């Protein structure tokens, strides 16, 4: 078929077309690992897989792209729509699982319109570099595959477009995206190579640090480049993010946890004092990308998926805690009224733990946990819990409280294993259980201090 000799700028009809063909068989591992995610939306360094292919097609000078699959494309269509976001025309069509290149070209003959056509075939990652000129692919006379790997290829069909000058063909490398392991390594490679090579989401005032919208980073949280952080992320005090950390959107990293060489997918809560190294975490699932081993748990002290809290349970808990606080206030009121002026006069009433236990009054105050008395009204107002993960801590996933579970049991209140102990108790706490624990805390606190003083 004769080709029109000139390319008209603005008229896309003769520009190179791109067919992106992806088959279910190559994506089945994504469906197994992340059942709620469309494989074409698999995030690689916080950017959906399909966008890398669209980027590459655009870099190669394509303005008309057709997405082909033997599975459902509806979800992709709802997100990518007509492609106007990228300034391209995106259309969708279906193929059969056994279709080869010849069939793809035949089935989309009207779309290809006798033009030069690039076929991005299979579930593969194209290691592009946005600084290079891939438009020469349209001018090149190569037909058939010019790069291939075990799960796909980049192939060309149709006559080459006339070239202005003879630029060399840039090297093309494609990597199979065939397992969690390859997904992990590709994401890490993108993070390492960075935004000068790929079009990446997020804002960064400095290289190696891309951060999305609505990200709250605590003063004591530490970011070690390179990192990529999505939207709506909370990094709580003492967290260490990076080096090599990809944090998705809607993620909370709770106090003291560190994430390195790891990917945290969207909608994930990472509990306190955890160490995630060389892992993928997605919702309530923790995955070792090398061995493929995965653990799924819904554990508020390890990992959970983020979804809205159950309001009725919260209300019941608040009511019972407030009731307990009211009783405690009544019980402590008389000793406080008597002892407070006495201790105040001696200058021994401090906010916080009572350390000196010389006199009878102090000992009595300590035994009755009067130092926590000023906090009790806050429980009535629902601002504090009577018992929680740690006193006066303030992070999601754990309740700030007057007493801590660690105080209730005769556990060390400090040190690394205290955190683990906290988890154990908090996981199984029911509102009624909490009352028992509060009483235990009241009884145990003085003993512990004595034991500490003796040691």
């Amino acid at each position, binding site marked *: 078929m004769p080709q029109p000799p000139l390319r008209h700028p603005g008229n896309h009809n003769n520009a190179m077309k791109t067919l992106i063909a992806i088959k279910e068989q190559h994506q089945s591992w994504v469906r197994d690992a992340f059942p709620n995610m469309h494989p074409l939306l698999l995030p690689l360094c916080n950017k959906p897989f399909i966008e890398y292919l669209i980027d590459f097609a655009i870099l190669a000078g394509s303005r008309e792209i057709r997405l082909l699959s033997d599975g459902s494309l509806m979800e992709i269509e709802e997100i990518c729509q007509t492609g106007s976001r990228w300034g391209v025309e995106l259309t969708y069509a279906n193929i059969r699982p056994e279709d080869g290149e010849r069939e793809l070209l035949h089935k989309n003959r009207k779309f290809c319109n006798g033009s030069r056509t690039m076929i991005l075939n299979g579930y593969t990652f194209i290691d592009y570099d946005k600084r290079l000129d891939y438009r020469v692919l349209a001018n090149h006379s190569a037909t058939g595959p010019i790069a291939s790997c075990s799960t796909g290829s980049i192939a060309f069909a149709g006559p080459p477009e006339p070239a202005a000058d003879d630029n060399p063909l840039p090297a093309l490398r494609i990597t199979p995206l065939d397992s969690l392991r390859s997904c992990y390594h590709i994401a890490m490679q993108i993070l390492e190579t960075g935004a000068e090579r790929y079009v990446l989401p997020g804002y960064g005032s400095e290289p190696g640090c891309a951060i999305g919208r609505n990200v709250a980073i605590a003063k004591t949280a530490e970011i070690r480049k390179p990192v990529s952080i999505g939207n709506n992320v909370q990094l709580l005090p003492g967290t260490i993010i990076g080096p090599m950390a990809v944090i998705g959107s809607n993620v909370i990293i709770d106090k003291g946890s560190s994430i390195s060489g790891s990917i945290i997918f969207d909608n994930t809560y990472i*509990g306190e*004092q*955890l*160490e*995630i*190294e060389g*892992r993928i975490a997605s919702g309530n699932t*923790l995955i*070792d990308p090398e*061995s493929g*081993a*995965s*653990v799924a*748990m819904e*554990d*508020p*002290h*390890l*990992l959970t998926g983020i979804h809205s809290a159950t309001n009725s349970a919260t209300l019941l808990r608040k009511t019972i805690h407030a009731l307990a606080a009211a009783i405690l206030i009544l019980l402590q009121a008389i000793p406080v009224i008597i002892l407070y002026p006495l201790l105040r006069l001696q200058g021994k009433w401090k906010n916080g733990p009572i350390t000196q236990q010389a006199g009878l009054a102090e000992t009595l105050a300590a035994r009755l946990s009067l130092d926590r008395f000023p906090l009790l009204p806050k429980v009535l107002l629902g601002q504090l819990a009577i018992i929680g993960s740690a006193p006066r801590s303030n992070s999601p996933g754990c309740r700030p409280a007057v007493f801590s579970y660690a105080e209730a049991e005769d*556990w060390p209140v400090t040190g*690394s*294993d205290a*955190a*683990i*102990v906290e*988890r*154990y*108790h908090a*996981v*199984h706490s029911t509102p009624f259980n909490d009352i028992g624990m509060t009483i235990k805390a009241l009884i145990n606190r003085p003993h512990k201090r004595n034991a500490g003083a003796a040691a």
Partner: protein
Amino acid sequence: MAFRLETQNGITIGIAELDERLDAENSKALQKACGDWQQQTPFLVFDCTKLDFIDSSGLGAIVSCLRRSLEKNGDLKLAGLNAKVSMVFELTKAKKLFSIFSNASDAAASFAASRQP
């Protein structure tokens, strides 16, 4: 939870085989059973070969068992952790608190070795 006692180099070592799951359902039971075992010896090995799932309450229970053994100048060693269970231990840094062996007999032998004059 099968439990047996072995004596090596004059040390009595208690070896407990944990079940497939250790979570909020049965972690209290483990703590209780462990209290009884510790009446017999503070030198314990938890054989985790069958253990396939552990959550934070399970971890809490094991850490609590360790603490009580340490208080009695003993130790609690772990053996035969599979990849999934091992990941949870690494995640919580609890791995650092334990001596971990590939199988129960190595773990038991290490108690005996530490008693060598």
